[in-house]
C-alpha cells in the first residue's frame, strides 16, 4: 500500500486522533494523540491490508529543555508481508508517560528500556523498566540535549 492510500485509510479510521501527518522523502509520519497510541498500534498490527507485524525501531528525540512539548517518541513500523513502512510519533513533556507497546510487539521491551535509559521517558505498563546500557546507579540521561557531551563527572 502506498503512502497516500495508507494515509486515507488511517485518517478514516482514526480521525481526530491523528494530530498531524507529514509525507517527506516518501516517508509517511503520523503524530498520534498519546492515549490512542496503543490501540492504534494493535489495529495497525492486525488489520488486513496493513499488517505492520514488525516493529523496526523505537526511539526518541529531545527538542531541548525549552521546547514544548519536549520529547517525541518515534515508532518505525514495517510489514514483512506487504513491504511497507509507517512512522508514528507521540509527543511528551517532561514527566509525562507514553503507553508501552511491548504488549503489542515483544521487541519494544528493550527499545523502551533504552529510551528510558537515554531520555528518562517512562512507559506506562512496561514489565521491566530498568536502565539497559548505563549502570544501574547512573545519574542523568545521556541523550538529553542538556546533558553535557563529556558527562557530569569531569
Amino acid at each position, binding site marked *: 500500500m502506498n503512502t497516500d492510500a495508507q494515509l486515507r485509510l488511517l485518517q478514516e479510521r482514526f480521525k481526530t486522533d491523528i494530530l498531524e501527518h507529514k509525507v*517527506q*522523502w516518501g*516517508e509517511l*509520519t503520523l503524530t498520534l494523540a498519546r492515549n490512542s497510541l496503543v490501540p492504534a498500534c494493535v489495529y495497525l498490527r492486525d488489520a488486513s491490508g496493513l499488517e505492520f*507485524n*514488525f*516493529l*523496526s*525501531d523505537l*526511539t526518541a*528525540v*529531545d527538542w531541548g529543555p525549552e521546547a514544548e512539548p519536549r520529547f517525541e517518541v*518515534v515508532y*518505525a513500523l*514495517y510489514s*514483512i508481508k506487504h*513491504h511497507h*513502512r509507517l*512512522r508514528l510519533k507521540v509527543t511528551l513533556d517532561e514527566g509525562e508517560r507514553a503507553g508501552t507497546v511491548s504488549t503489542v*510487539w*515483544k*521487541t519494544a*521491551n*528493550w*527499545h523502551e528500556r533504552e529510551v528510558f535509559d*537515554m531520555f528518562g521517558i517512562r512507559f506506562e505498563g512496561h514489565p521491566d523498566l530498568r*536502565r*539497559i*546500557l*548505563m*549502570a544501574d546507579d547512573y545519574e542523568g540521561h*545521556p*541523550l538529553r540535549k542538556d*546533558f553535557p*557531551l563529556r558527562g557530569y563527572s569531569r
Partner: protein
Amino acid sequence: MSQVLIEVRKKPLDSRMVLNMGPQHPSTHGVLRIELTLDGERVVKAVPDLGYLHTGMEKLAEHKRYNHVITILDRMDYLNSMGNDLGFVLAVEKMLELEIPPRAQYIRVMLTELQRIASHVVWIGTHGLDLGAMSMFFYSFREREAIMQLFEAVSGGRMTPSYFRVGGLSLDLPDGFLRRVLDYCDALPGALAEFDTLLTGNPIFRMRTEGIGHLSAREAIDWGISGPTLRASGVAYDVRRANPYSSYDEFDFEIPTRSEGDVYARYLVRRDEMKESMKIVRQAAENMPSGPIKAHAPRFVLPDRQLMKTQMDALIYHFLITCEGFPVPKGEVYFPIEGSKGELGVYLVSDGGNKPYRMHVRGPSFINLQALPAMVVGGLLADVVAVIGSIDIVLGEVDR
C-alpha cells in the same frame, strides 16, 4: 546485589543456582554478561546485562559533521563497518536527494558484500571454536585476511575503512583491484567446501546444534529478529530484496531460507549466504560501470584534487565543505539496509544544520540478542554457548 540473587537467597533450600556468565567469558563474543539461573544443568532464567561497551556513539554523532560520523560508525559493528557506513551515507543522501553515479553504487555493493562474507567467515570460525571445532577458526581467519587485504588496498584501513562518503566514495579503486576481487571469487568456493568438511558433516557439531535454540517464525517476527536468524526460521525477509537500495535490484541472487529455526539452520543460512554474496561480488566486478565515483553536487561533495588546484569555484567549495561541512534540509528519515546481522536502520533527524540533530541506529545485534532468553530457557547450560554464537552478535553494536 542482583535481583535474581536476592530471590534465590530468600529460599536457602532451593536447588537453583545463579551463574554469572561473562563479561569476560570467551563464548559471549565480547563483553556480554548473562545472569543464568540454573536448576541442575537446565536454564530456568536468563537475564542479559549489557552496556559494558557503551561508547555514546549517538550522542557523539550529534556533535560531529555528517562526514565525520562515518568514522564513528566504522567502530560500531566492527565486523560490518562497510555496512554501517553504507546505511548512514544512504540516509544522508536521501535527505539531500543526491543521485549517486552507477560506478559508485556498484563499488559500494561489491565492498559491502565482501564485508558480509568477512563477517560471516569470522562468525563461522568463532562459532565452531565455541563448540569445540578449533581448526575451523584458523581456516576461517585465513579467508578473512584475504578480504581485509582487499579493503586495505582500497581504503588504507582494514577494520575501519571509512571509505564511503556522502555523495560517493573517497577514492576510486586502485589499479588491478577488480582482477584481485575476481581471483578471490575463484578461490572462495574451495574454502567454503573446506568449511563444509569441517563443520557441516561433523557429527559432534550437528549434535550440538540441531534442535537447539528453537525460534518459530511468529515468535521471531514478534521479537523483531531480522537477518539470517529470521531467515533460518522460515521468513524470507531481506531488505536487499524487499526494499532494494544502492542498485541491488540489478543483481541476481537468492535469499537462502530454512524452516527449522534452530542453531544448525542459522549455520546453514549463513553458509549459503556467503555463496550468494560471492555471486553478487562477481557480478559487480564483472559489470563494473565506468564513470565518476561522486555525485555532481559541488556543495556537498568534495571536488577532485586536480580541480581544486586549478579552478576557483572548486577551491571555494572545498574550503566550505572542509571548514563547515554542509547543511542538510530539515526533516527526518529512517533508512534500513541489510547488514550482515540483519536490518540495520539509521534514523536521522536534521534541524537544517551541518550536524545531525539526532542519529539513532537500529542495531540488529541489539534486537536479536533480546530474544536470547526465549531461546535458552529450558535448555542446557552448554547450549547457551551455541545459541549466543548462532545469533551472531557484535557487542560494539549491541552497546553502541
